[in-house]
């Protein structure tokens, strides 16, 4: 029983060189390209697995234009045995749904299916830098009918199962999956190896097999624009709201810190608000309005439960849900699905936060979230209730659950939205106006653009970025309906076992309430175990300021802080009055967790660090030199303009 390791890989433009074509679609012809970072971690995960299973075969698959062969060659040079490229102009314009379908058809064509006798495992990147959806691995898994695990950092195999470490909010989980299965890898595990010269020389003579859509026998209507349930309706540039940073000047620690204090007292730079140019108002054409909902009504949300509590992002979700319900009118109801073990008591909480009805599913086996049974329950509820919109918080669970459900109900998904509105879509080609329709807006292309995505299949599914919407005001005693629901789960639904769940100390609620957060990066951990960071926090507390310390992911990984203190995409999203980052370079994942802070102060030895592009005040220098000086000033009463509580 030889194992096959299949890596799904995408080539992407270098983030700095992304640009859009005239048609609103990605123009991939001009930019320099690289293997998508997450995919390169998946490639490495496959190679690591091979080290445990020396007879395993490694194959790499991709879908895209012929130029992708460069990256496939690199995968071969890293040690892959075979490379396949699905390449056809007809695939152009495919959304994630159509992509997932095309890739799973390719794999089927190569002889891999649920019923394959030989074990195989699919490893893919968590998400791509030019799309950021994280959908495709889930969609491929659902199309193939095999189990999945996403946000995986490391994995190993006993030949029949995969044991994988999955990143979750505030911690991690160890999962055991039967094979075949699909895994998506975060860019935090083992970094991709560099190809050796010997490997590169070997790859020079290896062939890449290229298929077109006819070769793999996929219906043309199911791919490309026609096979995509969602469209990108509009893309606009995002203007950075943060004005340029004020850097401290000086040649020694004392001067730099004095300059920082002076700058903060003086206030941040402000960008002059550009007067919005009058938009050309094109007259709304007089087309007939089409209600494509086919009777679907209502909004369905998911209440995610962790450690017996509803997670904060699921409560935040009720804010856009209520707004959308109001915009839709017609007494549109917000229904929330609550799944867990003995979670009845939480139903009334949800109603107080804004749900009109809570469907409660209690099952001992479902005390922790699992994608397979949850997706089954959801698709049953959707089939029965026919909601027009389904919303999930874009947590690590929501981001894999939504696309898996999407495939089950033949709908697309919009990932990680920061705005959700009801609008209309003018279809000039067919002279009709779709109304009402959900406009899901999401940042994309490295947060530089804001895309509006529309779906034409109900439910219109979106995930909402955690920390973007405020938790609605709790209305004590608000009344609603609680419906209990029984489920019958198949053995197949329960084939993935959670071996271990680790979360940090009580979630550290204070991080959400602190006025000042001081966050230390890995170098600060390496040099003094975050001692100076904690000293600064202590000094601020002594001044009566509600202060907490936090950390970046690399520092947490290295063991300098617990998971509960991690700020960033896979940690917490915070917006304190002042966020002080120390020796943190400013990876985009970290920025996602703190960039909404009112004031950001950044200390880094590297003047080129990305964090400085996102901060209001900065000091370039070794934090070991600067912090003692800063702590001294805090003890003398400097509190970054924050009052004692």
């Amino acid at each position, binding site marked *: 029983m030889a194992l096959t390791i299949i890596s799904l890989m995408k080539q992407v433009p270098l983030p700095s060189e992304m640009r859009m074509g005239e048609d609103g679609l990605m123009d991939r012809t001009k930019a320099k390209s690289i293997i998508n970072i997450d995919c390169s971690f998946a490639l*490495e995960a496959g190679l*690591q697995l091979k080290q445990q299973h020396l007879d395993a075969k490694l194959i790499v698959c991709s879908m895209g234009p012929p130029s992708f062969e460069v990256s496939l060659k690199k995968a071969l040079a890293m040690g892959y045995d075979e490379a396949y490229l699905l390449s056809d102009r007809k695939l152009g314009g495919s959304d994630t749904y159509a992509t997932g379908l095309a890739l799973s058809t390719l794999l089927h064509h190569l002889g891999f299916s649920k019923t394959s006798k030989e074990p195989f495992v699919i490893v893919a990147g968590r998400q791509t830098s030019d799309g950021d959806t994280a959908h495709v691995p889930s969609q491929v898994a659902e199309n193939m009918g095999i189990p999945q695990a996403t946000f995986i950092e490391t994995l190993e195999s006993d030949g029949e199962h995969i044991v994988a470490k999955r990143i979750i909010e505030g911690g991690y989980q160890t999962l055991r999956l039967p094979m075949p299965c699909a895994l998506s890898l975060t860019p935090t595990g*083992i*970094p*991709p*190896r*560099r*190809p*050796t*010269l*010997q490997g*590169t*020389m070997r790859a*020079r003579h290896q062939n890449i097999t290229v298929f077109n859509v006819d070769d793999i026998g996929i219906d043309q209507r199911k791919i490309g624009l026609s096979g995509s349930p969602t469209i990108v309706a509009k893309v606009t540039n995002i203007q950075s709201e943060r004005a340029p940073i004020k850097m401290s000047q000086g040649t*020694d*620690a004392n001067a730099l810190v004095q300059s920082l204090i002076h700058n903060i007292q003086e206030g941040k730079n402000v960008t002059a608000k550009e007067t919005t140019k009058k938009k050309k108002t094109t007259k709304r054409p007089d087309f007939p309005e089409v209600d494509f909902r086919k009777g679907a009504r209502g909004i369905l949300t998911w209440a995610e439960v962790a450690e017996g509590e509803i997670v904060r992002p699921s409560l935040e979700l009720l804010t856009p849900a209520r707004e959308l319900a109001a915009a839709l009118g017609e007494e549109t109801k917000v229904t929330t699905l609550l799944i867990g073990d003995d979670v009845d008591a939480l139903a009334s909480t949800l109603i107080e936060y804004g749900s009109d009805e809570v469907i409660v599913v209690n099952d001992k086996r479902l005390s922790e979230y699992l994608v397979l049974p949850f997706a089954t329950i959801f698709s049953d509820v959707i089939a029965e209730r026919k909601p027009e919109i389904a919303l999930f918080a874009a947590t690590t669970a929501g981001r894999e659950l939504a696309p898996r459900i999407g495939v089950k109900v033949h709908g697309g998904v919009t990932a990680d939205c920061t705005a959700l509105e009801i609008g209309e879509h003018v279809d000039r080609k067919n002279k009709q106006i779709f109304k009402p329709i959900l406009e899901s807006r999401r940042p994309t292309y490295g947060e530089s653009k804001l895309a509006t995505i529309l779906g034409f299949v109900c439910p219109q599914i979106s995930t909402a970025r955690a920390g973007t919407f405020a938790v609605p005001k709790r209305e004590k005693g608000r009344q609603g309906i609680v419906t209990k629901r029984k489920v019958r789960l198949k053995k197949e639904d329960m084939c993935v076992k959670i071996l271990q769940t680790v979360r940090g100390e009580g979630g550290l609620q204070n991080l959400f309430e602190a006025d000042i957060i001081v966050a230390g990066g890995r170098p600060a951990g390496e040099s003094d175990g975050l001692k100076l960071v904690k000293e600064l926090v202590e000094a601020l507390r002594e001044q009566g300021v509600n202060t907490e310390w936090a950390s970046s992911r690399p520092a947490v990984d290295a063991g300098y802080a617990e998971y509960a203190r991690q700020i960033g995409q896979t940690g917490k999203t915070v917006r304190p009055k002042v966020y002080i980052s120390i020796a943190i370079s400013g990876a985009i994942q970290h920025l996602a967790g703190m960039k909404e802070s009112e004031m950001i102060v950044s200390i880094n030895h590297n*003047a*080129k660090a990305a964090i400085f592009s996102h901060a209001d005040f900065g000091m370039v220098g*070794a934090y070991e*030199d600067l912090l*003692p000086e800063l702590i001294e000033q805090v003890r003398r009463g400097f509190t970054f303009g924050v009052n004692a509580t």
Partner: protein
Amino acid sequence: MNNSNVVSTDLLIIGAGPAGLSAAIHAADTFKENGDSKKIILIEKGKEVGAHILSGALIKTEAFKELLDEEEFDALPFDSQVTTDMTLKLSEEGSFSLPFHPPYMDNKETQIASLGALCRYLATLAEKRGVEIYSGFAVDDIWYEAGQVVGVITKDTGVDHRGKRLKNFQEGTKVRAEITIFAEGSRGSLAKKLLRRFNLDSGRNPQIYSLGVKELWSVPAGTVQAGEVLHTFGYPLKSDEEFGGGFVYGLQDDKVALGFVVGLDYVDPTFDIHAAMQVWKQHPKIAALLQGATLIEFGAKTLPEGGYLSIPKLYDDNFMIVGDSAGLVAMPALKGVHLAVTSGMCAAKTAVLALFKNNTTAAELSHYEALIATSRIYKELYPVRNFRQSFRNGLWQGGLKFGVQLLSGGACPFSGDLKTQPDSQTLEPLDEYRGRKFQQRFREKLHYDKKLTFDKVTSVFYSKTTHDEEQIPHLHVNNTERFKRINMARYGTPCQYFCPAEVYEVHVDKEGDTTLRIHAENCVHCKTCDIKSPADGITWSVPYGGDGPEYDYM
């Protein structure tokens, strides 16, 4: 070492500069003429061919005529033919142009080019001939067997900054070759090892170098015409201590290549070539050219200028050294590209013949030096063999001495051939230097507006330099205690000034103690620190393949 990590080839070339590529092209051609087919592999450390190539560049074209067929020659991507050529002597405020052009700097039949663009083109010609080029691979070791060079070993990857193996560790590849041609460019780190191991420089003058700092600018239309060449000397250099000057080459599409080159035999321990270029740009003559202009690229590189008497023995059993690694730069004319091409061709001829005879011993490869002796390399370098040394004691005196040499066929009538002193030995200790220190001389001008003048870190940004942080820093202080005592205490840490990329920072803590911080990630691979640090202070070694600058049109 398991066998899967070993590959083999007939001819191996290290470095895809003009010398290495010419060797590859000419070897492939010569094999073909003899009806032979041999494997040629070329390894380049830059991410792509051209990524680490930087030159002025004024290029004498005739060597390329010998290398390429007519059609290929005509398609060489030269930028512009030189149209006018002026030399200015700058003083602090003014300037005067030399009434006539020094004959040894004549640029007739000369093209302005981006050497990087030229190399990228040559690489396509080499690949067309079947040469396998692998860029993005670092070679940091030579493979010896029974005391002889039998190939090279590429660098291990996947170690942390202390050298501990990480999970993605990949052992380097051993490349076995019948003959290896080292074409690493100026101060090659492998050539340095070969020189020591085989005493290749015994009886020769020590090699001496210059550092060139170059900027590519986009100027308002009509400011400088394509083909215009301007050289300056004088300000801001001390004419009796600092040898060098600036250049301005007009390129197509309203681009201008600006450079400032200074011999590393200067004596002021606070002298700073990057800063000198920024001061130079503030001179009214130069500043006028850059009004409304924008910086596009920055880079820096050393070049060997010891000339004929500093050329080491260029071969031994199974290997040869070519191009800048061999020190083949015709100093008075500031030109080395055509000599690199010629040396590559000489080495290729020798290699093909040796492989045909199945004899790659030193005796057979000595043919290479014989070919050089009858080539333009000898003709151009021998008569000016004492040129650079003459300027050791200042420009005017040097000019006089050199004038005499031109009359006497290169000999120094009074003293015989002139010696050189390694650049690492010319600095005077900080307290003993009696002249006005560079940092004081130009104190008023060392503020950078980021429009006309740039600090080093900003400059580095324009070189698109990156380095993987997970590796042993490729810059190494050889002996920490001695470095503190000599480089820091005695000489005032000259690396903080001479490094054009702010790799070296002197950190002063609260107690006033100083430590050296090395920002290896800034390094643009010019290797000045390896050359100029007193008492062999610092060793430059090659980082991971693909690291370093990513020059586009330098």
